[in-house]
C-alpha cells in the first residue's frame, strides 16, 4: 500500500516493525511504540501518552520535510 501511495504523494510510514516496512518498500520510516498501540502507551497517564504521541507525529512531519534518496529510518 505504501508503495502505491509513494508513486504519487510523499508518505511517511509510521509503524512498529521497521524491517517489515523496509521489506514492503517504504522510503520514509518512523518507528513507533508497540504493535497494539503504535502511538500510545497505556501504562502512562493520558497526558504523558499524548505528549509521546505528539513527539512521534512531529518526527513523522520532519521525515516528510526531509529530502531523501533512499530508504531512511527516522529515529529522532
Amino acid at each position, binding site marked *: 500500500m505504501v508503495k502505491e501511495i509513494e508513486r504519487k504523494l510523499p508518505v511517511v510510514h509510521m509503524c512498529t516493525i521497521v524491517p517489515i516496512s523496509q521489506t514492503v518498500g517504504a522510503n520514509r520510516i518512523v518507528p513507533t511504540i508497540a*504493535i*497494539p498501540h503504535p502511538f500510545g502507551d497505556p501504562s502512562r497517564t493520558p497526558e504523558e501518552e499524548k505528549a509521546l504521541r505528539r513527539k512521534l507525529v512531529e518526527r513523522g512531519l520532519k521525515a516528510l520535510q526531509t529530502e531523501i534518496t533512499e530508504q531512511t529510518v527516522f529515529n529522532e
Partner: protein
Amino acid sequence: MLKLITNNMNLYNTVRNGEFIDGSSLSVLIRVRSLVHLGSKILTHPLCGNLRPNHQPFRSVIIDEKSGPADLESLSLIEDAVRVYQSCKLIMPEEIDEATLKDYAYIDSELMKESLIQFSLLTHNP
C-alpha cells in the same frame, strides 16, 4: 519470566509457570501473538511437530514474557504460524475421538518435554 502457553491440560499441570488457554490451537497462537506484540520472546517454534494444523488440536509454546519492543524473529514466527493455521480452517476436523485426542495430547507433551527440561520449567514428568 519463562512461561508455557498451552491448551494441553496434561502439560499445563506439569509446569512451574504456565498459562492455560481454554480453546483451540489457534487461540493459543493468538494469545502468544498478543504477548509477542508487547515484547515477549518466543523460545520454542510455534509450529513444532510435523503435522498439519488440522491434525494438531494441541499447541504449546514457551515464551520469555516481558514488555518492550517486539522481537522481530518471534514476531515473524508467530505471525507465520497464525497464518498457516488460518489458511487451514477449512480442513479442520470437527470432532476427534478420545483415543486420537489422547495421542495428540501425548505427542504435544513429548515435543515440549525436552524444551521444558532445558528451560527448567518442568515440575514432574508429563
